[in-house]
């Protein structure tokens, strides 16, 4: 109990990070509509990139709780089709833009790093995502826009770089107050379908996600 109170009384650490996810909006997952996304943009994935700001707070048991606010951006574009029933491409470029904003609560297991010196920190996180989106036609004007809310769940591993390069870590801590620099790799599942609403554009996906986070 005393340990818990001491832990909660400790100052939270500020974190800043960059995030990179290989994303593909799950528009075609909506039943009965065919594959409009694949038809237009292909089947490949594109970068969903952005950053986050957050705070971490140690809790007993070698864990750390995290709360992060993230903003990311995704854009895909392709030549539109000539409107003659064929799949011949025209000169205009149609595009979709998705800007997911997330509020995530997470838990990080730091015992491997802090007790055993192994610079690996497994994590899980989950939270709310709100994804404004827009679609534009060939001349760049928006033809549709909306926002799809949903949930996200993810997990993976942080690699504490300060554990790999200790001399640089000391310099970063002494000169800039940086306590932690970590690379992140994991899997993220986003249920972006407005909780099942039929009037929402489905943007769900399961994707590999990577990032770099600095803790102060």
């Amino acid at each position, binding site marked *: 109990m005393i340990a818990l109170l001491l832990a909660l009384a400790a100052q939270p650490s500020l974190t800043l990070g960059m995030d990179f996810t290989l994303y593909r909006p799950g528009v075609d997952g909506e039943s009965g509509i065919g594959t409009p996304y694949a*038809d237009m943009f292909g089947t490949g994935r594109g970068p969903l990139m952005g950053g986050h700001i957050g705070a971490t707070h140690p809790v007993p048991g070698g864990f750390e709780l995290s709360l992060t606010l993230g903003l990311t951006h995704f854009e895909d574009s392709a030549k539109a089709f000539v409107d003659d029933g064929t799949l011949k491409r*025209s000169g205009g*470029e149609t595009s979709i833009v998705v800007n997911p904003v997330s509020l995530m609560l997470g838990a990080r297991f730091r015992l491997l790093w802090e007790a055993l010196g192994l610079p690996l920190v497994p994590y899980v996180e989950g939270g709310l995502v709100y994804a404004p989106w827009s*679609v534009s036609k060939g001349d760049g004007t928006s033809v549709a826009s909306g926002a*799809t809310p949903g949930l996200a769940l993810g997990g993976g591993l942080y690699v504490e770089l300060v554990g790999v390069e200790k001399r640089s870590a000391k310099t970063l801590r002494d000169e800039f107050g940086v306590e932690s620099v970590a690379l992140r790799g994991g899997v993220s599942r986003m249920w972006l379908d407005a*909780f099942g*609403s039929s*009037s929402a554009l489905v943007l769900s996906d399961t994707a590999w996600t990577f990032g770099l986070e600095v803790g102060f």
Partner: protein
Amino acid sequence: MARFASLAGHRSLLRGPTDGTAVAFASIVLRAHLILFFAGLAALPASAAPIVLREGDRLLTDAERLEWINVARCSCDSELTIALDLSSLAQTGNAALVAGKSCLTTENRISSSCRIVWDGTIDTETHTLKVTASELAGSCAATETKIDLTLFVDAEDEDVWTSATTMSIGVDTKPPSAPEKGDVVAGEGLAEVSFETDEKKAVQHQVLCTTLAGGAVLDDPPEAVFDSELERCGQGDGLLAARFVCAEASDGTASVTVLGLTDHVAYRFAMVSVDDAGNPSSVTTIGEATPSPEQDFWERYQQGGGDADGTGCQTASPGILWGLLFFVRRK
């Protein structure tokens, strides 16, 4: 008379001073100075700049001066107005305004390879001169260089000259190479023009478009970055007019989207490269295209039966409510 002995072989560009404006000009300058003084906005300058360049009524900026002589101005004999204020020299003797490169010989004489724009006795008047681009450059042959416009002084009337002040004027009479080839694909109310170029120097690319009848297409075309002989003196390629500009490529891109076209109307497209001095290349014909309706992603989605609300953020509101309820119920 000795002072003009060495000038006899030079090509004089003097075409009559318009000194009648000097008194009025001095009066305006004096009033302006008094206003500034009493307003406390600025101290009176010690002297005005001895050489002021204007194109028409507009003062030439330093950047404009360094790109001023181009193909169109040279071929069309565009005039530069030079206001020469000798009072700032604060000395007596003779003065000569000379255009060229390395205009002083080792004996401090004015080189015969340079052009005398004006010469005379140093006085307190402002001399207004007009000189054409080709006279300043000496030739309109293709070149990229700078010439100096130098005010020389011969204080002792001994034909021994020293430079009082000088300013450079850019000469670029070498047009860039034209876009090599291109293609045009129509869209809905637009056309995408792509092209290739091997021009190494910094150039911009503009699309020129016309109706099949040769008329202009856009009511409010983008500003032409080229300075054409057609616009200045009615010579040269008939397409190189500002009214035919339809779009311009962003720096480094090799395709341009021309917007504002009408579906089911045929257009002709051409491209031109333009260098920093405004010199256009020869015009490269790209082809013809007729815009027609296209199917964008949203139309494709709706055609398949997708019924998401795309009219704004309306879908978000109930979604958020449901999401919050979901969390509250879990707690």
